């Protein structure tokens, strides 16, 4: 995990002359693919029952399906809500997988591309973080703030791709300009996330918790 985060940070190295060293598109993609594989390795090491496996598959399937009719409204999507809820209930690794599979599966229908690994990370990390949050006792209002924050973070992760591919002189100034220009999109995504989380979040957590209780055995 530490290695993954190190690689993640290694993508953005600034020079003294305020130009970014070697921010090549394929290096970016490679780093993100490596991060995903490190999580896949964690997933393989952990013991999962068949029911948990199909549950993860089904949740990511639902979240992918919900993404497709909303693909026209930029950002206002219910996916993040479902991902965060499943992370809260089923733990970090399951949450990451539900999140990472959402773009991977829905892009079979909406179009794959070099942006897929970044989307996978951008939606996987909220699931992972929610998994760690779920171990503590937290207020629901905090979860709404969390969803809003991930709306922005998702946009910033996707900006790395946009910056590496479409903007030529990779200097600090163009970097800042790219991020300033994306604010409109990020705000609409974050707003959608918060709204969906506020309206349907609580009941989703209730349903998922009920299913978790139904199929876990506790030895007294």
């Amino acid at each position, binding site marked *: 995990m530490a290695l993954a985060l190190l690689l993640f940070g290694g993508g953005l190295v600034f020079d003294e002359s305020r130009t970014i060293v070697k921010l090549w*598109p394929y290096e970016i993609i490679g780093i993100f693919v490596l991060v995903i594989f490190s999580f896949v390795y964690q997933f393989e090491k952990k013991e999962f029952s068949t029911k948990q496996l*199909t549950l993860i*598959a089904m949740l990511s399937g639902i979240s992918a399906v919900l993404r497709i*009719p909303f693909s026209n409204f930029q950002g206002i999507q219910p996916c993040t809500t479902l991902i965060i809820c499943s992370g809260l209930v089923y733990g970090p690794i399951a949450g990451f*997988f539900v999140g990472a599979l959402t773009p991977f599966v829905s892009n079979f229908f909406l*179009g794959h*591309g070099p942006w897929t690994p970044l989307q996978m990370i951008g939606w996987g990390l909220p699931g992972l973080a929610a998994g760690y949050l779920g171990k503590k006792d937290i207020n629901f209002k905090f979860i709404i703030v969390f969803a809003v924050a991930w709306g922005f973070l998702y946009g910033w992760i996707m900006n790395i791709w946009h910056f590496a591919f479409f*903007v030529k002189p990779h200097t600090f100034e163009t970097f800042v300009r790219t991020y300033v220009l994306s604010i409109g999109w990020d705000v609409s995504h974050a707003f959608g996330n918060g709204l969906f989380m506020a*309206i349907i979040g609580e009941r989703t957590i209730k349903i998922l918790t009920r299913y978790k209780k139904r199929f876990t055995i506790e030895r007294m």
Partner: protein
Amino acid sequence: MLELVYKRKRSVFHDASPFLKMSWLFSILMISIIFEHPIILSIIFLSSLLMAFVSKIFYDWARVMKLVVFFVPFVILFNLLVNANGETVLWQLPFRIPIFGILNITLEELAFSLTMCIRIAAILGAFAVLNLTTDPDDLLIAVTKLRLPYKSVVVTSLSTKFVPVLFSDLKNIQEAQRSRGVDFSKGKLYDRIKKYGAIFFPLLSKSLDRSVQIAESMETRGFGRYEKRSFYKDTKISASDILLIVVSIAPLIISLYMVSQGVGVFKFYQKIDSLIKSSSEAYYILAILLVQVFLLPLLKIKERMAYD
């Protein structure tokens, strides 16, 4: 809505081994990421266009390409706002904007954004060809054969399979709620999302029930019993496939050699380069074009051998 769905058809590229499709896509993807040279990117785009033509999916493919046309003004506008580079200034805004500084339109910026559009067209086109000609299941079997972790591949293929089922479920629930008087097309955003819950919660509980059933049926078939997985449908590589894979990878090898020789670098700023700088560069580009085009007659020959 679901435009990029695989449809069963008979053509060379549909029937080709998933390994060939993957190697073809990989080589196109890598070349289009390595180079920023407009001619090479056009050749790569041409390759996926010809492939779409050969595999008889041209109309579906052209619909995907329309997206790129919508993309063009966006990329150009973005580059004009972000960059202030280039020597040949065509037009300049008379005043300064706080963060962005001087706003100007230069020939170099225009050329760069158009080239990026060709690049994105090449990548999208290749992915569209793969999406339209390949069953996701075949692809995932091939991935398992490459000794990739098998639990995550199972999860991925399961959720890919669920998508059409869940989609029809979604429509059924929507119609059921509509007949009970829920109007999905009215109200403010807040009300709409609230109504949307009327589809979301039934779908969630129904599909969670289904996931339990599927887990049980998988367990009765012995899922997870053995370390090594057995297959119902086998994908084998024949000698002709290996030849085709080598041909599809060849352009990538040529372009990697070009990079190591320092040929084929195209600079946009501060002054745009001429399209072809030396004769050796022209020869390399010609070689890439020839190898890309050479794949098609080979596929045709294979089609003749298989069907006649």
